[in-house]
């Protein structure tokens, strides 16, 4: 029940229903117009806030149950809960850290590299919009929406070291990583005054609509480093380690697809035409990624697999994230196609040659997808879709190669390299520090027993009882 709302609305409805007689008095026109303005503003906010609250929920759903299922279906039965917990614990821990200071360090104005503490403990984050970021929705909604991105990013990395890392080491690592990698990169790309944010005073214009750089490049390259530093699972690669339930992974992948509408279309921060455009580009990229991965498999093995189809969709989604609100839907499909092929090649050919154990392909899908998506945004971004960047004369600036701005590819590359640098170094530092605090890997016996029993004292399934 919403008493406040009720009261508030009583005002509006007086305004809106009771009006006629009252309106006859000419002198009231100005007052009426003022009242209407306020009412329109409220009503714009309702529409946009409705969409953004749903988008926030969708993005949370990507982590739990989405990613938790996607990942936990790919591990062996004995690790199903342990893998789910790596996603779930981020929903708990990152949430609290975000409220305490991480939000402020990303979106507080600060300097070109990092924000400040103005919003610590949600100080000043209330119902009124933050005009810099999202002028039509409550600041609280913006904060919540951004939080969901911070939750999923470290959760993604965990795919690289699945089935072998101790639970509290994973938590410690993720917390360090959040502050050492996510916070600065997100601030640089999205924060006011961030070095790479062309829309709010940044130096180098990097276009990252929904987190290709901030989420996928950082987590993907960090995953690679972590996989190498932590080492292979015992028995890898000669032992049979197959997904214990592609059914779970399938459900998870569908939820990721659906949630990604919140991720990408929600990044319009309003229920606008731009949101619709990003929605469609996202959907096309997912579809195209699934198709191209399936085609690649069919060429190579004669069979398209379910794991391939969902991997392709996720690759398409990860890759289009950067450009979703800058490219046309048709470009989205092209990006998805490329993503399916490239990520397939990375995961199936290159990885197996190099021999590191990125168990669930966090690097091969998110790192590689994020990287090529970053460059492809430089190619396909167009002012026909997004005219927010203005030239001195007030006209929309050309964005990517298709607008004739070939240099943007270079800018995107710089953005990617900075994110990679943060990811690589930050992961190295975070893992080293974690190792000083607590052993990172499970011991051999625990690994054999499985995370569920060894770390959490439970079993995922008790079908026998």
């Amino acid at each position: 029940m919403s008493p406040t709302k009720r009261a508030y609305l009583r005002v509006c409805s007086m305004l809106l229903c009771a009006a006629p007689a009252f309106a006859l008095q000419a002198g009231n026109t100005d007052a009426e117009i003022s009242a209407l303005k306020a009412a329109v503003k409220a009503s714009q906010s309702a529409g946009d806030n409705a969409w953004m609250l749903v988008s926030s929920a969708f993005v949370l759903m990507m982590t739990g149950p989405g990613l938790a299922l996607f990942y936990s279906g790919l591990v062996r039965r004995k690790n199903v809960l342990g893998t789910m917990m790596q996603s779930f614990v981020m929903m708990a821990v990152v949430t609290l850290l975000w409220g305490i200071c991480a939000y402020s360090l990303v979106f507080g104005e600060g300097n070109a590299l990092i924000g400040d503490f103005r919003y610590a403990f949600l100080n000043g984050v209330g119902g009124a919009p933050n005009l810099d970021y999202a002028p039509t929705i409550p600041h609280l909604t913006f904060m919540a929406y951004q939080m969901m991105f911070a939750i999923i990013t470290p959760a993604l990395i965990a795919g690289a070291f699945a089935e072998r890392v101790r639970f509290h080491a994973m938590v410690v690592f993720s917390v360090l990583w959040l502050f050492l990698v996510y916070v600065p990169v997100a601030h640089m790309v999205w924060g006011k005054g961030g070095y790479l944010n062309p829309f709010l005073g940044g130096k180098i214009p990097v276009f990252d609509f929904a987190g290709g750089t901030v989420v996928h490049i950082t987590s993907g390259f960090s995953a690679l480093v972590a996989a190498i530093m932590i080492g292979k699972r015992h028995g890898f690669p000669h032992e049979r380690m197959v997904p214990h339930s592609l059914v779970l992974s399938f459900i998870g992948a569908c939820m990721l697809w659906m949630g990604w509408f919140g991720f990408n279309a929600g990044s319009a921060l309003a229920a606008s035409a731009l949101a619709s455009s990003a929605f469609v580009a996202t959907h096309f990229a997912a579809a195209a990624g699934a198709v191209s991965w399936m085609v690649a498999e069919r060429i190579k093995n004669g069979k398209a697999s379910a794991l391939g189809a969902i991997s392709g969709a996720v690759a398409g989604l990860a890759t289009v994230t950067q450009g979703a609100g800058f490219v046309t839907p048709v470009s989205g499909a092209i990006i998805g196609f490329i993503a399916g092929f490239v990520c397939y090649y990375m995961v199936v050919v290159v990885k197996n040659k190099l021999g590191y154990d990125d168990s669930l392909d966090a690097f091969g899908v998110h790192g590689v997808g994020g990287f090529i998506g970053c460059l492809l945004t430089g190619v396909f971004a167009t002012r026909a879709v997004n005219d927010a960047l203005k030239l001195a004369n007030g006209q929309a600036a050309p964005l990517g190669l298709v607008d004739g701005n070939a240099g943007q590819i270079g800018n995107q590359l710089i953005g990617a390299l900075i994110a990679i640098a943060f990811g690589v170094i930050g992961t190295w530092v975070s893992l080293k520090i974690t190792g000083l605090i607590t052993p990172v890997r499970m011991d051999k016996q625990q690994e054999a027993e499985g995370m569920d029993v060894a770390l959490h004292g439970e079993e995922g399934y008790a079908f026998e009882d």
Partner: protein
Amino acid sequence: MFKIEAIIQPFKLDDVREALKAAGIDGVTITEVRGHGRQKGHKEIYRGREYHVDLLPKAKLEMVVPESRKDEVIDTIMNAARTGNIGDGKIFVYNVGEAIRIRNNDRGESAL
């Protein structure tokens, strides 16, 4: 008494059980097993990692029967389980020392 152990194709289980019932053999214990023999398996590929699966699902039936019915039971199974293809399975016969019905402590053939 003998234990007749038959390892058969899982999809033949219903046929075999019906044939046994028709022959008056009621008591049977069934285990899902995986077996390897001459039948070839299949390939599975997960993101480029290839596994040859050469253990195939089979059903193992165990029946303890009195000596007098041994051959009949074997024939019944043979007839019902045979397709003529590789993978049809095997029957093994073992000696049973004793049989006891838990419910009422019946022993020997009357326990079957």
